[in-house]
Every structure is written in structure tokens, then in C-alpha cells.
């Protein structure tokens, strides 16, 4: 918007352009507004980072524990708080990885179905149905996960820990309420529509010549997909997965509802725990002193950086693919 102020007064020029209203002032105002809005968006993201940093630094300086490596979270003494993030990082990454392991293959399948298998007439309505999954608010996923899905997940967990229990990841942790595993499953359903939508888009863009070429050489439909569709869509699928991962890392309320808070820590996905987001949400009532608030904001800052990096990578992959295909 600064561009409009520094310009010479419009009225001086009117005499030279008497016949048509050039609308120069209108143009200046309008382009100024457009540019200003764009700059505002950039400033907003910068402000998010800056504000979180400003709030987090004093608390981090007071922190008596190692923020990155100490597994403590004790803010009772405002003069000497001790907080560290490894537990949060573990729970966040574990849930996100379970979600990805389920959602990405499933989403590729759904996207292939919608682009290459479904009869053309129903492909569109079917795609809407999958998109509707994205419309369900996350608190309802959480509610459904803990009240409806929990008993089923207990059965699956019981089976997995009795057969694969010798692997620490699948060891029975004795948690009867919501676990990281259940949260991961619910999260998989939540990120499925995002990953599907983008994969669907890139699969649909596969040049018909590639597909017809494969079929003409005698390939079966699956061989056509493997040799023409999947290689063409690979970068798109990777970036779709990254966007899903970004969403999974930051999901708050569903995980807050589902995963039970536990005292003990181990590397089992059948344990409870807290993620960055659920830790902050669970303690929203405790934002009473700057140090306490600062500690939670520091956790939020780590989450911001994580999602920033994941999304930036996704974006770069997409950009490179664009440059490559055009």
C-alpha cells in the first residue's frame, strides 16, 4: 500500500489525458491493495515465527534441562523450570509414521481406483465421497476413535503384541485406553483424503500416449499402471505424502482425545503419550506465568519448524516436477 502514497498527485496529469479516463488512480489503489495483501501474507508467516521465538526464548534461557535431550517436563518452579521435548518428539513422529504407513498405500490405491478403474460415470461422485472424509471435523474423528474404534483396536493390538511382541515397537505396554497405535489409525483416515486428492490429480495427468503405448505393447492394466502411471506420478505422490505428514504432525484435538497420558516411557506403539500439539492443548489452562507459557510456546515453535520444513520440501518436490514436465 505504500506505493500509492509516494506517487505524484494525479490531478496534475489530467490535462494531458482529457479524452479517456485512464483510471490511473484506481489502478494504483487497486494494485496497491493487491500487493499489500500479498505482503501481508508474507508478513503473517514471518510474524508467526517471530512471535513464537520472542515468547519462547526467555523460557528457554531459564530452562535448567536440555531442551532437546532431557526427558522431563516440570514447570512448577517458575524460577527453575525443567522441560525437554524428546518424549513429545517420539510420540509425534510415531503417530505420524503409523498414519503414513497406512494412509499412503491406501491413498495410492484409492487414487488409482478413481483415475483408472472406476467407471467414468461414477468416478466423480466417488471422488466427492472421499473428499467428504476431509470435511468431517477432527474432534469428531477423535470422539469416534475413542468411543467406537477403541475395542476393535484393542483386539488388533492384542494380536500384534502376542505375535510380534518380541520387537520393542510392538511390546504390550499395558495401556487399556487409547494408544499411539489407535491415534495413528484414526489419523490415517484423516490424512487419506489429502494424499488421495493430490495423487489423483497427478495420476489423471498421465499423458494418454504413455498409457496407450503400454497397452498397445500388450501390457495388462496393472503393468500399464506400473510402467506409465506410477513413474509419471511419483513426484506428485511424494509431495502428497509430505503434505499429509505435515497435517499429521500438527493434528491436535483428535490425538488429545484419543491418546492416554502415561507416566512410563518405552518405545512401544501400544503405549500412551503426548505429542507437541496434545501437550499444548492439554495444558491450555496452565498458561498463567510467562515461563510456563514460554515453555509450551517453545514446544509449539518446534512443531512450527517441523511442519515448515516438511511443507517446504513437499513444495520443492512439486516445483521440480513442474519444471521437469513442462
Amino acid at each position, binding site marked *: 500500500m505504500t506505493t500509492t502514497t509516494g506517487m505524484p498527485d494525479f490531478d496534475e496529469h489530467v490535462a494531458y489525458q482529457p479524452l479517456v479516463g485512464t483510471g490511473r488512480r484506481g489502478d494504483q489503489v487497486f*494494485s496497491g491493495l493487491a500487493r499489500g495483501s500479498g505482503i501481508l501474507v508474507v508478513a503473517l508467516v514471518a510474524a508467526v515465527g517471530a512471535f513464537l521465538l520472542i515468547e519462547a526464548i526467555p523460557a528457554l534461557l531459564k530452562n535448567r534441562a536440555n531442551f532437546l535431550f532431557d526427558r522431563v517436563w516440570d514447570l512448577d518452579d517458575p524460577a527453575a523450570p525443567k522441560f525437554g521435548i524428546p518424549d513429545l518428539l517420539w510420540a509425534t513422529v510415531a503417530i505420524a509414521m503409523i498414519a503414513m504407513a497406512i494412509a499412503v498405500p491406501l491413498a495410492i490405491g484409492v487414487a488409482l481406483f478413481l483415475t483408472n478403474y472406476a467407471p467414468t460415470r461414477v468416478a466423480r461422485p466417488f471422488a466427492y465421497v472421499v473428499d467428504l472424509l476431509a470435511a468431517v471435523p*477432527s474432534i469428531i474423528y477423535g470422539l469416534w476413535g475413542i468411543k467406537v474404534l477403541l475395542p476393535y483396536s484393542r483386539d488388533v493390538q492384542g494380536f500384534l503384541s502376542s505375535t510380534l511382541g518380541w520387537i520393542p515397537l510392538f511390546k504390550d505396554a499395558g495401556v487399556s485406553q487409547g494408544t499411539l497405535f489407535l491415534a495413528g489409525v484414526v489419523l490415517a483416515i484423516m490424512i487419506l483424503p489429502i494424499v488421495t486428492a493430490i495423487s489423483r490429480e497427478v495420476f489423471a495427468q498421465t499423458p494418454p500416449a504413455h498409457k496407450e503405448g503400454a497397452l498397445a505393447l500388450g501390457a495388462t492394466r496393472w503393468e500399464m499402471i506400473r510402467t506409465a502411471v506410477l513413474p509419471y506420478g511419483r513426484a506428485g505422490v511424494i509431495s502428497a505424502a509430505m503434505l499429509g505428514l505435515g497435517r499429521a504432525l500438527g493434528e491436535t484435538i483428535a490425538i488429545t482425545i484419543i491418546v492416554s497420558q502415561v507416566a512410563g516411557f518405552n518405545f512401544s506403539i501400544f503405549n500412551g503419550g503426548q505429542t507437541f500439539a496434545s501437550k499444548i492443548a492439554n495444558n491450555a489452562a496452565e498458561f498463567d506465568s510467562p515461563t510456563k507459557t514460554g515453555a509450551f510456546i517453545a514446544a509449539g515453535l518446534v512443531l512450527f519448524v517441523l511442519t515448515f520444513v516438511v511443507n517446504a520440501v513437499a513444495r520443492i518436490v512439486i516445483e521440480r516436477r513442474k519444471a521437469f514436465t513442462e
Partner: protein
Amino acid sequence: MTSIAAAGATPLIGPSIERPSRAREIRNAIATGLIWTSFFAAVVPLVWILYTVITKGLSLLLSSTWWLESQRGITVRHVGGGAYHAIVGTLLQATVTALISVPIAIFTAVYLVEYGRGRLARAVSFMVDILTGIPSIVAALFIYALWVTTLGLDRAGFSVSLALVLLMLPVVVRSTEEMLRLVPNELREASYALGVPKWKTISRVVIPTAFSGIVTGVLLGLARVIGETAPLLILGPYTKEINFNLFSGNMAALPTMINWDRTQSLQPAVDRTWAAALTLILLVLLLNIAGRVIARFSRV
């Protein structure tokens, strides 16, 4: 030359319309089965969730008290009261969010499509993508740091709206941008040829052409933010009373109403949890369907 002769020795000469080998056919059938299964596996949770919420929540929604009364004075033991306070809060916050974010989003999209060249445009586009990925809890923390810690104001409905603006902006920018790019360049050129200035071309020709698409984007953006719970946890404490004031006092919203009642084990509260969940789903679905219908019946 010998290699060609070798190739000629194989029975591949001439059109071969043999069926693929058995192993390849089996692999193809397995892949087909898996791909069909994956689609139905994706639909199951949707149907299951809708079924759960409808069967458990519908009965309360059928009485008029649900839509007309608040929860004031009603404890978890008591049946009765409604979600009016929460519906009012959700709608008010959503309206203010839309009023703030839609103009900024549309101008940003106009900048990206009509004006943006070079480094700033790339930066804006990149930052819109980053905003898309910002977790709602981070947006809420940012507004908390700005509104409560820095400005020293009390948490209120308006601070929730500010956090929601951050989440709604990128959705509307992206959809509007897409719609503006669909407007044929001939329309712009015809307008310029008639001597119409650029700003008037954009505001009278380009945006009206893309209008329905933009409305769709706005509705879908609203549908996304209306169900957000994390900003409400940080910035909008629940109350059982009706509050129309966005700038003072606690204000209820449907997600926080669900969050309040879900921790209770007594049946009246459990019923209210599912009823509130169904109300929220209906609201979101309504916005979604309205958006899609508009998009369908008025293609650019």
C-alpha cells in the same frame, strides 16, 4: 545384423494377439482386487462415523429446545437445554473470520494472478503454501502470544476469529487463484481494447466471471475452520451461557461444547456430546454441499 536375425527367430513376427501369461494375469487380478478394496476401505470409516453420529445424536436434534435454548443452569445430570449458545458462537466467529479473511485472500489471489511477477510473487505463493500447512494449534499459539501476552487483552471470541483467519486465508487464496486463472485471457484483452483500466477490468470482468468459483472456495474454507477445535482450546474457553459479544466474555462454540461434554460419563452429557457432534457435521456438510452445488451449476 546377427541380433536382428536372432530376434527374427522368435515367434514374435507378425501381429501377436496371444493372451498374457498366466502369472501376469494373476498379478493383474490381484492388483485390481487390491485397488477396488482400497477404495471401499476408505469409504467404510466415513459411513461408520456418519452412522454413529446420526444414530446417537439425532433424537435430541428433533426437539426445538435443542435449537432455541442454551445450557445455562443445566448440569451433567440433567436432560434438557440446547446448543443455541454454541451455534450462535460458532456462526458469529465464522462470520467475522470470513469478513476479515475473504477480502485479504481475494486481493492476494488477484495479486498472484494479475500483478505478481518475480521474487515477491514467488515469496507470496510460497508463504501461502506454508500457511496451508500451519497446524491450527500453532496459529492459536501465535494469536495467544500476540493478543494476550503482547497486547494484554483478554481471550474473547474475536481472538478465536483471528486464529481462524490464518487457517482460512490459504484455502480461499488457492481456490480463488485457481478460478482467476480459468478466466479466459480474451475477456481481459477485450476489456483492455475498449479502454477499460486494469483495476476495472479485474473488478468488473474477471472477478464476476470467476465469482461462483470464489464463493465455492469461501464456503469450503469456512467448512474447514468451523470445526477447528485447537484455537478454541487456547483462545475461547467454553461457557454454558449465550454471549453475543465477540470482544468480552467467554463464548461457546460447537467444538468446545463437544469437548466439554465428552469427558462426562453420565448419559445426559453423553447424548449432548453426540447431538452437538451431529449439529457440527450438519453445519459443515451444508457448507460443503452448498459450495459444490454452486461450483457445479456455474462453471466458469
